[in-house]
């Protein structure tokens, strides 16, 4: 295995002191909207220097839900390596992590926002769990694309794509050098239940429990409808639903608060739409990575859904207003 090729992205972009935000105004002009959103009130935004407005009313020492997510993903990673023989080398983990953190740091500097490691860490864990490659460069490329997309592909003040998702979709479609392993978790009920249980807590803390539930609910309905139409035994849709990879996707990827609509109804539409797209990809186009493609497309459509969304933009519990740090969230205020 040749692990020698590390991509260019690892080298640090030359960064000028981020006193002003030279690019953000430009980007704002390109996307036709100001780059940043204020957490409170309407979507009117401030283009002034990075504000320090805090989001949620301080309800004491509540913990950032991203920390739960990091703990849960970390535990799953350890379980996967120890008990499911995931072939993940320390080098792979560190390359993904180093690329993600470096990119986050560099982009934060360029866009003059506060550096925030938690989101990059979540992306690192997600990519490490889901993406496989023989060489290191596709993993580094995925990490770079994931993080860079948060800064570069923005609409209506939010990043368009779920970071880890777009990283996976981009490298698996563009190269044959990386792949996912949908069967790697197996279909043990206890494991699916455990992932769902932990995931429920994390997404509940992030006020996004509705997303995995509606996604899985709609997906399950489609599977059962298909089985009924075909006259298949119910063990077939059950097998699909017990797949640990699907449950992990539902609770730890699609539920990212920063890339789901803020209002409940648009969010339900988003989750249900992703489930339908995933079904079509898997059962009509026979794409085993259908869920990832579905989420990427749903994220592209999301700004349209959000036209009808008057809810306040999501802010992480401890987030300052930084355009970069939108990853997960917090309980309803």
């Amino acid at each position, binding site marked *: 295995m040749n692990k020698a090729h590390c991509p260019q992205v690892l080298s640090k972009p030359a960064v000028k002191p981020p006193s002003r935000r030279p690019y953000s105004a430009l980007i704002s002009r390109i996307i036709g909207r100001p780059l940043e959103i204020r957490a409170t009130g309407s979507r009117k935004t401030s283009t002034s220097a990075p504000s320090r407005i805090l989001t949620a009313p301080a309800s004491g020492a509540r913990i950032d839900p991203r920390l739960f997510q990091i703990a849960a993903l970390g535990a799953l990673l350890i379980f996967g390596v120890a008990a499911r023989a995931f072939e993940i080398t320390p080098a792979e983990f560190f390359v993904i992590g180093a690329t993600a953190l470096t990119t986050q740091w560099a982009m934060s500097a360029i866009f003059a926002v506060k550096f925030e490691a938690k989101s990059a860490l979540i992306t690192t864990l997600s990519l490490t769990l889901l993406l496989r490659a023989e060489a290191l460069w596709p993993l580094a490329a995925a990490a770079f694309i994931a993080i860079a997309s948060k800064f570069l592909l923005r609409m209506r003040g939010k990043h368009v794509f779920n970071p880890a998702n777009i990283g996976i979709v981009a490298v698996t479609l563009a190269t044959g050098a990386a792949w996912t392993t949908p*069967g790697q978790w197996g279909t043990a009920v206890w494991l699916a239940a455990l992932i769902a249980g932990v995931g429920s807590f994390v997404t509940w803390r992030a006020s996004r429990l509705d997303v995995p539930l509606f996604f899985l609910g709609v997906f399950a309905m489609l599977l059962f409808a298909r089985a009924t139409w075909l006259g298949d035994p119910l063990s077939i849709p059950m*097998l699909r639903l017990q797949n640990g990879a699907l449950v992990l996707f539902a609770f730890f990827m699609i539920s990212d608060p920063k890339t789901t609509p803020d209002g409940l109804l648009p969010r339900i539409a988003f989750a249900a739409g992703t489930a339908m797209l995933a079904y079509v990809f898997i059962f009509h186009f026979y794409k085993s990575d259908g869920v990832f493609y579905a989420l990427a497309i749903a994220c592209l459509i999301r700004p349209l859904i959000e036209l009808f969304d008057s809810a306040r933009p999501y802010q992480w519990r401890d987030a300052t207003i930084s355009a970069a740090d939108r990853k997960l969230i917090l309980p309803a205020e």
Partner: protein
Amino acid sequence: MNRSLKKSLIAAASALAAVTATGGAFAFCGFYVAKADTKLFNKASKVAIMRDGERTVITMSNDYQGELKEFAMVVPVPVVLEEGQIHVTENAIIDHLDAYTSPRLVEYFDEDPCAVYANDEIMVTASKAPAAAAERRRGDDALGVTVEAEYTVGEYDIQILSAKESGGLAIWLKQNGYKLPKGAEATLGSYVKQGTKFFVAKVNLDEQTKTGLRYLRPLQIAFESPRFMLPIRLGTVNADGKQELFVFALTRNGRVETTNYRTVKLPTGMTVPTYVKDEFGDFYKAMFAEQVQRESENAVFLEYAWDMNWCDPCAADPLSDDELQELGVYWLDGGGDRAEPMTRRRPSPGGAKDVFVTRLHVSYDAAHFPEDLMFKTTGDRENFQGRYVMRHPYKGDAKCEAADRYRADLPKRFENEAQTLANLTGWDIEDIRTKMDDNGQSFTPPKKEKWWEKLWSKSDKKG
């Protein structure tokens, strides 16, 4: 201890034979439908799949042992096949592929512990030609059924059917002399609704006689389909217990795995007691059965994943270009019939052929494998093989301090081997110890020499 290790190899082809030859009759992943009231089985099958993009060539090897006129096979296929898309090939090719990818036992002989050797491993012998082991084995419209095409290919009469609904198809099959197992209709219905066609093959006795063979040759079909899968559901309908399936995937990119079931690597690289040499087939079967249980009976096992240019150690030579082309590998241009000697060693980087082989082994029934096997090709080209090691202790009369230490260490090493074997196979550890003892792997520590025994041994020769 710096000891050179000689190794030799025992191919596991015989082990596979033992697995596949159980049961009197056989049908591939379709199901066996007898024309008479014969007891039906389908126990094991070997399927080679060439997959590149959407191009697919499936070779279905069968070990059918019953009356030829009762043989019948139904395989769901995605499209109506033209005659040129159907072919009959030789068993020897599948047997060769089987032998090349078989789990293997490697033998090492400990050298004189008193001597110092370079530490490189030398391949002394490889297996005998696997062929030796291989040789041992051997009214329609109203029903909504359309016979889309009929061909005679080799010794087979083939019909490609399409159906509007399963009831009609079931009646058609019964009217045409097939005996359908209970429960087949629902499964057929599922395929009918998915737009699947059915490839139905029977033996043409006249043509079969002309071949002069006493067995049936593997059928091959070539088609394009976005679905990379193997239909196993029909095969579970009339199954008498679990069935064994070996899938040999040939791709350009790399390893193949299942997406709807977990693909697990077979344990490999363990050192096992030397007596396993004589019962390697049993060892393989027991180990496989034990691993199946440990994975809750619903995992697919990876037994081999290798670049077709080489092997190390080789259970058999890699397949020739001609053989690969016969199995559907269409991108080997200019392979011709230059019978290049196959390398047993690492090839020059890059390799001559761009073919990666994956061997998957699954023991399945409807309860644990309700859905057909769905595959994907990964970019993983890392080599993997099921390989087990035997280390023969040094039997010579070495006399030196190193030899004493070596002998004193042996019982511990044997105990480790015993526990490894028990753990892999679920065999009783006491039985294992007894067999090892009988086979020269004794657990009794060597008699400890007293310190003074050596003192005057040289001068006191007259003794």
